[in-house]
């Protein structure tokens, strides 16, 4: 049974993850064709409900939906941090009347997409909620990792940065864990929780973390303005202690470690600008794969129909479980 919503990684089984990753493959192949569109979601409508500003995720979802021939409606909602549950409920009640098939939600408050999903018949897709989850990001990350390591089980990925406030760290580490990838967290002691992450190796020293032998280094965007109180002294010091400095970059290159980043990057903070031209940087691939991964999610949740095998390219292959 395909669930109504796509809210987090924790509730997905390994089989569901594998299925979604498989479905994304033919969608990515589509991008090299002259016509990049399939009629899979013709007549379906996707409402974009972004309470937090986002360029990348927003446009990625929009492109994904349009390549599936869905109608995209962008709801003009206030990008304010003060938007609370009560106002959101009113909005959702309004949306219910529009009979959207999908609602793609981003919100500053952890748990908001779950609250919305309970109140609507539409399929809710979490496009990032607070520090809780960013499941489509995790999916595109896993897809990207599998492109370089087709069988990623036993590989090691080091996720570095502000783990405490990062929904990407939570979702991506959970998904990688489901694929048998070993995950390490690296960051300042104040930003890597001691309690909580299970089965994850905790590092607060970059060299020790490299000693661990990661196959990929996943850098998170570090922002001081996100923090209500200071967790580390300065961005300059962060770069020196936890950033990919030129010196560390030499070592990373030498060991052939892949670099990932959810974007947008802060040059001079989590990485030096040389990293961007590194042949083993997967950052641009992640962006492209984001569209394919989101198409796979939209397609998987497709409401109301039993999908027939073989139709609409390979993508229809395993989608007939609803």
């Amino acid at each position, binding site marked *: 049974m395909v669930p109504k919503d796509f809210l987090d990684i*924790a509730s997905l089984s390994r089989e569901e993850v594998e299925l979604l990753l498989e479905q994304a493959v033919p969608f990515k192949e589509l991008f090299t064709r002259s016509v990049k569109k399939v009629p899979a979601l013709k007549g379906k409508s996707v409402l974009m409900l972004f309470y937090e500003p986002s360029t990348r995720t927003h446009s990625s979802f929009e492109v994904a939906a349009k390549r599936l021939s869905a109608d995209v409606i962008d709801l003009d909602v206030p990008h304010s941090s003060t938007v*609370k*549950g*009560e106002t*959101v*409920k009113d909005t959702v009640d309004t949306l219910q009347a529009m009979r959207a098939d999908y609602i793609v939600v981003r*919100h500053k*408050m*952890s*748990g*908001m997409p*779950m*609250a919305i999903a309970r109140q609507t018949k539409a399929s809710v897709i979490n496009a990032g*909620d*607070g*520090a*809780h*989850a960013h499941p489509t990001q995790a999916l595109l990350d896993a897809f990207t990792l599998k492109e370089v390591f087709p069988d990623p089980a036993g590989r090691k990925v080091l996720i570095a940065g502000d783990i*405490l*406030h990062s*929904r990407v760290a*939570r979702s991506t580490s959970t998904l990688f864990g489901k694929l048998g990838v070993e995950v390490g967290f690296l960051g300042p002691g104040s930003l890597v*929780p001691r*309690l*909580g*992450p*299970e089965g994850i190796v905790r590092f607060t020293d970059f060299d020790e973390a490299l000693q661990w032998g990661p196959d990929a280094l996943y850098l998170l965007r570090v922002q001081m303005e996100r923090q209500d*109180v200071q967790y580390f002294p300065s961005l300059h010091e962060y770069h020196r202690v936890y950033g990919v400095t030129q010196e560390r970059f030499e070592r990373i290159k030498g060991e052939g470690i892949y670099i990932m980043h959810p974007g947008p990057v802060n040059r001079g903070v989590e990485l030096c600008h040389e990293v961007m031209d590194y042949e083993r940087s997967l950052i641009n691939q992640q962006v492209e794969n984001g569209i394919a991964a989101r198409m796979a999610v939209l397609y998987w949740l497709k409401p109301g129909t039993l999908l027939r095998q073989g139709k609409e390219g390979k993508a229809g292959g395993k989608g007939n479980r609803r």
Partner: protein
Amino acid sequence: MRILIRGGAVAAEDGDPVRGDVLIEEGVITAVAEGLKAAKGVRVVEAGGKIVAPAMFDAHVHFREPGQEHKEDLAHGTEAAINGGVTGVVMMPNTSPAIDSAAVVRTLYDKAAEVSRLPVYTSGCITKSRAGKELAGIDGMRKLGVTMLTDDGDSVADPALLMHAMEYATDFGMFFASHCEVPELAGPRALNDGKVSYQLGIVGSPACSEEICMDRDIRLAHAAGAHVHIQHVSSALGMETIRWWKERGVRVTAEVSPHHLIFNEGDIGEYNTHYKMNPPLRTAEDNAALLAGLKEGVFDLIATDHAPHSEFEKGQDFVSAPNGITGLETALVSLFDRFVVTGEFGWDLLVRRYSAEPRRLMGLEPVPVAEGKRADLIVFDPAGETTFTRQFMKSKSVNTPFLDQTLQGRVEMVVRGEEVLLER
């Protein structure tokens, strides 16, 4: 009116319940003994296998009046109390306007006299509007009988102001109740700092936020010669803090709530706001430590922190939803179901900690089921069941984790003076 409650066992602060019939005449208990005969005209209540206990008293409730009557009010709150076997309550002053002057207290007491079948006591604010800036109208409230001062919901951030208040009001025979929290450490005040806060992606509130403030307030009270009562202790180290100070003879009392004994952060699941309160639910280890503290007498009393909120408010996302759950209707049955049935403690503890001690804290006489005492008692069926449906609940709000659950034990009757307040 004369009532003979026949065949039950009488519970008291000390010892196990003892078989005894209870005769009430004109609101006074005139005999407690086995084999009492019913004279003509005496109403007989058969209570075979049941417990006859002193009625409970809750020293920590939010009745939301004035200002937030969509959540609760005096009429519904006191009916909820009766429904749970509670015949006296102490209101918290975080209403709007806050209960910070004689005028508000008088209005409330007048209203309570009109709409309530129970005596209602209120605490008063330490500072005006609970803003932590200026002292409230302390003497005016004292003249109306207020003895407990608290800014419950918040701590008084300025230790000097709190200490001055303690020095000032102690000589008026008043005492202080502390909601302990260092707000800078408490984050968005939604849940405990730990495993669950990581999983849910919400910056947690560490137990030390509560423990530091608790320790501060006890030290301030000690220095000022005041009595401080620590509210809703939620952590093992918090319990140990109280124990440490008590062992040194410092005048401190403390309460624990049923929810901190029964639930922990693991119950929150996927953002279930019926498990959101402040201080937050902590860990299973904390549950065990709090229970040990209750049994060992570290906690003087059990209080519910009955905190009604509308379904709409609790239906928001976890961070935005307000803190607190209702407790008056579920406390006794849930404590019985979880701890008496399992043999963790007996009726003596329930009576001492949820009936006698809270009354003593407020300067009131306990209400033992004994000859010569005014009747203020409940009949409780340990073999019965209670299902906490919306229909069952008399509170205006149903924000409790026990909603629609069936627990063992049932409050069958509540008698206060000449009045039978409840009979099922």
